[in-house]
């Protein structure tokens, strides 16, 4: 069943964008809620083995989400998402950032713009996420960070790739 759900992941190196389309087996209102309500967002946003911890959230124009992804050892990686252009239940836009536990934004790390759109697809829904980085180098930095922080086990495969590139 799950395998039948649409999942497109497109990287446009020319425009520095990621476009991610995913279908969900639920009505649009519920999917919207999962993206925009803290108690629901906390249950899925951080990829395994991380968990999500929200410090503060105000889902509204000009509002923000200050959260941490917590690894199994308890180390916290803080993020800050600013919301704008909120149009329930069609779309919203955000600007993301890395920050500290106090919400002070790290200006040295890349920020990306997110445009998250919700559509009906029969009884299901689709969510289209377009993430735009200022440059491809920014995208690369984000990917590298994922690896350095041990964000996900599969990224270890990058080490093998590196070995072949170094030769």
């Amino acid at each position, binding site marked *: 069943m799950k395998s039948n759900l649409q999942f497109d992941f497109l990287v446009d190196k020319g425009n520095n964008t990621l476009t991610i389309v995913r279908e969900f087996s639920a009505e649009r209102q519920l999917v919207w809620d999962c993206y925009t309500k803290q108690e629901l967002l906390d249950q899925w946003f951080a*990829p395994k083995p991380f968990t999500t911890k929200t410090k503060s959230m105000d889902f509204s124009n000009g509002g923000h989400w200050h959260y941490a992804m917590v690894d199994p050892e308890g180390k916290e990686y803080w993020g800050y998402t600013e919301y704008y252009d909120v149009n329930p239940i069609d779309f919203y836009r955000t600007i993301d950032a890395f920050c500290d536990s106090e919400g002070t934004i790290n200006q040295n790390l890349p920020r990306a713009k997110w445009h998250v759109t919700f559509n009906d697809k029969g009884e299901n829904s689709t969510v289209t996420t377009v993430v735009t980085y200022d440059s491809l180098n920014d995208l690369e930095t984000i990917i*590298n960070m994922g690896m350095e922080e041990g964000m996900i086990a599969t990224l270890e495969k990058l080490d093998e790739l590196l070995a072949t590139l170094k030769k």
Partner: protein
Amino acid sequence: MKLRRDIFQAISDPTRRAILVLLTSQTMTAGAIAENFDAARPTISKHIQILNECDLVEANQQGREIYYELKIEKMKEIDKWLEQFRKIWENRFDQLDNLLSTINNKKNEK
């Protein structure tokens, strides 16, 4: 760490991307590549050199000429690399699937 950054810097430049596109159809000399751009020849040579250092193109001597060839496998490795990024999203969405089905099952029980 440095090497990975180099590869992404290589393809982050529009001229270098254009050179890679040119080389998808045929091998070319530096001179033939330069003819496609307004930039000065040494500038184009520098771009080619960077691509070469990053292993994205290969220089092959043929008689008196050096022909540059796109190394398709290296380009694919960049895509493979991005594939790892995709896995993060897959994982995240799988968790959302579970959450949605949990919520929907609870609703149906009521």
